[in-house]
């Protein structure tokens, strides 16, 4: 990860006012943030915390009440910065009367891409998001997950340096979520910078390098995921093939060093891993049915 700052906010605030200029909602309060090239940055917070407002300010969809929002060193309202930027909105706000190919061709034209390049790029992205089989269907016939994938494709049409994803895994099934996370990690491996906002903590934990936690428009925490999540006064040990006698000996060593054994039993995998394993297994061996609960126990 380089030290070049791609996105910067300085004392960024946003207050929504009514028609008469009276203050209605203070959506963002004096946000100071830096996002560096090559990192995956997560913007976390409950609903109404200011995540989407921050992203919209960075995109120029909203204007700051005070402070500054800079992208690639330019003001966020500078349209030219969008040449190097991709955006996946919270919902797939696409033109439902176009099909996938037409959609990507249209957005490619907005980047002044030559026809041959557009065609090649559209084909690559449709393949990447796994929608070859539905590329000629109008988007109004797509499921939510399919629309989300085309939304991601249009966000990548210009091979952007910075990608902003607003709730990227929202509405996706576990497989779609896994694929989205894998894609995000792939983008990072290509040197791209990703800013994603989410309230699905597990998803953020899996992919983000650094996170910022917002609450009621204020920045509450900022730092690397691994550092923030570390529980400093506990030690975790995972061991394989340890007998009961071995477990008792480890317990005794800990107690001899004035430690307290909190738990010592078989760790659990995640539900996501279990789900994915079952689905992969089912695809490999169709027709195999689950055992009855009493049998499995």
């Amino acid at each position, binding site marked *: 990860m380089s030290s070049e700052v791609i996105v910067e906010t300085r004392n960024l605030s946003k207050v*929504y006012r009514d028609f008469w200029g009276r203050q209605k909602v203070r959506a963002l309060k004096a946000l100071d943030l830096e996002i560096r090239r090559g990192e995956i940055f997560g913007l976390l917070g409950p609903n109404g915390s200011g995540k989407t407002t921050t992203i*919209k300010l960075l*995109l*120029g*969809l*909203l*204007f700051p009440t005070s402070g500054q929002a800079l992208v690639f060193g330019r003001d966020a309202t*500078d*349209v*030219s910065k*969008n*040449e190097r*930027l991709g*955006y996946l*909105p919270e*919902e797939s*706000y*696409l*033109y439902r*009367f*176009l099909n996938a190919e037409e959609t990507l061709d*249209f*957005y490619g*034209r*907005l*980047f*002044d891409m030559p026809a041959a390049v557009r065609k090649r790029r559209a084909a690559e992205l449709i393949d990447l998001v796994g929608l070859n089989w539905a590329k000629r269907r109008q988007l109004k016939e797509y499921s939510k997950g399919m629309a989300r994938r085309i*939304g991601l494709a*249009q966000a990548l049409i*210009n091979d952007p340096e910075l990608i902003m994803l607003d709730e990227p895994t929202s509405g996706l099934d576990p497989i779609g979520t896994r694929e989205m996370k894998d894609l995000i990690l792939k983008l990072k491996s290509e040197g791209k910078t990703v800013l994603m906002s989410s309230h699905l903590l597990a998803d953020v934990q899996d992919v983000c390098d650094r996170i910022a936690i917002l609450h009621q428009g204020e920045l509450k925490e900022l730092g690397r995921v691994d550092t923030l999540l570390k529980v400093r006064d506990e030690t975790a040990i995972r061991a394989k093939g340890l007998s009961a006698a071995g477990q008792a000996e480890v317990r005794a060593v800990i107690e001899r060093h004035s430690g307290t054994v909190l738990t010592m039993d078989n760790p659990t995998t995640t539900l996501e891993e279990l789900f994915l394993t079952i689905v992969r297994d089912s695809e490999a061996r169709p027709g195999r049915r689950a055992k009855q609960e009493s049998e499995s126990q």
Partner: protein
Amino acid sequence: MTLELAPPIFGNWIWPALQFFLQAAAILGFTALTVGFLVAAFRYGPVAGGDLTYRMLRTGVRDLLALSPQRVLALAWLAIQESLRRRVLVGFGVFLLILLFAGWFLDSKTNDPATLYLSFVLTATTYLVLLMALFLSAFSLPADIKNHTIYTIVTKPVRPGEIVLGRILGFSAIGTVLLAVMGLFSYVFVVRVLNHNHEVELVSLKTATGDTTGTRTGRTTASQNHRHQITIDAEGKGSTDIVQGHYHDVDQQTDGDKTTYVIGPPQDLLTARVPQYGSLRFKDRNGQGIERGISVGNEWKYRSFVEGGTPAAAIWTFQDITPERYPEGVPIEMTIRVFRSYKGDIEKGILGSLVLKNPRTGRSSRMETFRAKEFTIDSRNIPRKLADTDGNPIDLFDDLVADGELEVWLQCIDSSQYFGVAPADFYLRAADASFAGNFVKSYLGIWVQMLLVTSFGVMFSTFLSGAVAMMATLAAVVLGFFTKFVFDVAQGAVEGGGPIESLIRLVNQRNVTVQMEPGLTRDAVEGADAVFMFFMKSVSSLLPDFRQFSNVDYVAHGFDIPLDTLGVQMFSGLGYVVAVCAIGYYFLRTREMAR
């Protein structure tokens, strides 16, 4: 056809118009920047406000220079797709229905069917296309903003001006195709409906008693609520009289013992006259030169009148009268209005006279009398060989034309009756252009109107919701069609006062000529009206006069639309579109899309 203003000459019009446009743009632009600075200074302080204003100006110039034709065309293509999805072709279906059932509600007994049908198709096309443009343009952008589909566009390197221009281009393209198809169907409809034939009523054919030339007269069968009188010469060639603005050629064909008469298709029904107008002056009842004729009390001052039975005359002077231009004599056409101070014989037209004069030598042709035909065009041909007042033979070009100039004197002979004339009421029929070509030209005027409505609709939609933008555009169109009236009210040239006073008069049923009682109420009403009228004057000065883009009258009355007029319409329209695009850019640029 009434022509209250002489058609402009494009070469004389363009440079002053361009200067005026640039001056107006500079003044309005400076005003907008000043207002913007004051608002910004009030909100953020003078320094920050100045910086904001400067950055706005700088960004505007940069965006203009960075305008991408490919992006504009992409957005235009999207607008076209959206229009098709919104079933814009239904408008064309409605038009076809109207054409199909036109015969049910158009007067089949009219004396001028060509004018009626041409006015009908052109007016129907105008209203339908303008309505379609209004709905498409006003609702598109607000729908995009409401559905948030605009997010995926404005987060690309798309300038606000490209969004405005793309939409105007896209909707105009749809309108152009619709207009072309409607025009084709209208043309076929008019030609087919007006085409008709007659047959000769053989029993009516007879030679006049004492006639030695072999000329026969008769009449035709009735068709489309009229019939003609026919005249056939000894060689079997002839023609009908002019009824409902047209005539037919008649041809006798002999095949052995069998003689048949073939009546050709209607002639002069669908025409595009190229008139040559002259300057008009008058002589009063004492023979003295005056600028205008007398008034008979009409409110509309378009025509003035020449008193009958006196030396009073209306004199037209024509230029460039040459044998090359008029090799077979000079065809003249006139539309005379008549004012009767007594009823007289209402079946007979008022008697008038025409004299041609040399403007240098004063030599005149022999007086030719005629009976005035009101509300119809009276066509005659002045042959090259004439006689003067003494009966001596004279040549039109050698004796009556001086340096290309010719005078035509029109007088009313019947005492105490009056002829009403305007400069465009008398002209030389210099040539005939193609009716089909003229029909196409008339659609260019409708096209410019459609472009204006589209531009205004898109502009209003950059800062108003769909329904409000539609109302605002509709208001602009209506005000545009009544610009002159609104301007006259704003100037106080219309009796009854301003809007508030008119409303009070309407509610109280007060006569417009009776002044309001002096007092506080009248002062308050006049004060409020002064403010309204200032805004009315400003708005009517800024909005386009939609009637200036309408060429319906030209085509319906059979006159060629001058290319100069088309040029003025095109460039005027373009000027408005440029201004409206700039306004739309500004509003879109300063709008928060996510709110």
